[in-house]
C-alpha cells in the first residue's frame, strides 16, 4: 500500500511510468469491474481505454493516495455506465435466456462435461443483476482480498460477502435449471 501511495504521488506529478505501473497492478480487477457493468467483453478495451484516459487527465485530483483503488473503481464504473448508456437498445440483454433442455436433470453438475458447465456458468454470470455480477467476477479474478473487494465496491465487507454468497447461489440455481423466482430466494 505504501508503495502504491508513492506511485500515486509520482503519477500526480506527471510520471508516466508510475501511472503505467499503477494501472497494470490494478488491471485484472479493473477489467472484472468493467465487465461486471457491461455484462460482456464486447467493448471492454474501449471502456478501459477511456478509463486510462480519465486516469491520465484526472490523477492530480486524487487527494488521498491511500484511497487510489476506491477512486479508480469509481472512475471505471462511471465510464462503463456511460458506455452502456450509449449502446443501441437492441444490444442490451432483455433478461435471462431460456433454460437449457436438460436443465431439470437430477444432478446436472455430475455428468456434465466441464466445458459445458463453464458455458452455463458464463451464461448465468451474464444474467446476474449487476451488483451480484460485479462481486462474482471480482472474487474470481483472484486478485483482491475481501477487504479490497469491499473497498472497490464501496460497501462493508459483510455486505460484500452476502452478495457473493447470493451470486454463487443464483449461478448454482441457474446451472441446475431452477427458475428465476427460485433463484431470487
Amino acid at each position, binding site marked *: 500500500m505504501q508503495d502504491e501511495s508513492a506511485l500515486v504521488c509520482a503519477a500526480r506529478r*506527471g510520471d*508516466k511510468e508510475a*501511472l*503505467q505501473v499503477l*494501472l*497494470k497492478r490494478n*488491471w*485484472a480487477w479493473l*477489467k*472484472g469491474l468493467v*465487465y461486471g457493468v457491461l455484462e460482456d*467483453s464486447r467493448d*471492454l*478495451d474501449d471502456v*478501459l*481505454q*477511456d478509463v*486510462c*484516459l480519465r486516469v*491520465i*487527465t484526472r490523477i*492530480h485530483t486524487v487527494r488521498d493516495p491511500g484511497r487510489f483503488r476506491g477512486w479508480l473503481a469509481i472512475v471505471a464504473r462511471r465510464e462503463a455506465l456511460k458506455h452502456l448508456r450509449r449502446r443501441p437498445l437492441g444490444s442490451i440483454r432483455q433478461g435471462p435466456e431460456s433454460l437449457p433442455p436438460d436443465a431439470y436433470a437430477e444432478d446436472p*453438475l455430475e455428468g456434465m462435461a*466441464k466445458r459445458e*458447465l*463453464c458455458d452455463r*456458468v*458464463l451464461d448465468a*454470470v451474464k444474467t446476474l443483476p449487476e451488483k451480484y455480477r460485479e462481486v*462474482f*467476477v471480482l*472474487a*474470481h*479474478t*483472484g486478485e483482491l*482480498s*475481501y477487504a479490497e473487494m469491499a473497498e472497490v465496491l464501496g460497501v462493508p465487507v459483510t455486505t460484500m*460477502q*452476502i452478495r*457473493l*454468497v447470493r451470486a*454463487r*447461489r443464483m*449461478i*448454482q440455481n441457474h*446451472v441446475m435449471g431452477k427458475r428465476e423466482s427460485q433463484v431470487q*430466494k
Partner: protein
Amino acid sequence: MSQSDIRLEILIGRQLDGEISPGEQKILERELAADSQARELFEQLRRLHQCGREVVASEVVEAGAGAEEIFERAWRKNAGFSWCRILRIDGRLRFAVGVAAGFLLGLALHFVLVSGAKLPVEPAGPPQIVEDIPREIDRPVDVIPTMNPQASRQLMREVDWYVFTDQSGNPWVIEGLREGMAKPASLRGEMH
C-alpha cells in the same frame, strides 16, 4: 435460505477464496464431518468456484488487449489535450482566466475599432499657432451682452457647461467654449 445455510455458505466461500481463519476452518471441518448435505454443498460450490475462475480468466482477464497497449493508446490520445494537463487549473480559476482574457480582448477591440484607425501623429516640425485667438476673455466685462434671438438661430453653439461654487458659496454655471470663442458667464441664483 436459512441463517445457518448462509453462514455455512459464507464459510465455504471464505475457504474457497482463501480468506478463512483457523477458527473458522475448524468450525467448517466440524460441519462438513457431521452433515452430508453440507459436504454436497461444499463439493458443488468447489466445482462452481473452479469453473468461475476459468470463466473469468478466459472471458475477462485474458480477453482483449494488454494493459500496456491500452495505456499507450490512451496516452497518445491524451497528447492532443496536453495543454489541459499543463495548466491543471480548476473550474473557477479557468472561468476567471476566461473572463480576464475576454476583458482584455474587448479593451483591445475598443481601442482599435472605436478610437478608429486614426492614430495620433507626431508633428514633424515645431508647433505652430494656427489662429490668433483674441484674448477677450481676459478683459473685464462691464456690460453683459445680450443674445440676439434672430442671430442665435443661426449660431452653432458648441458648448459644455460647468458648475462650481465659489468661496462665498454661490453656485456658478460656466459656459465652457470651444477653442477660439468667448462667452460671458452667467450666474445661477442671485447676482452679487
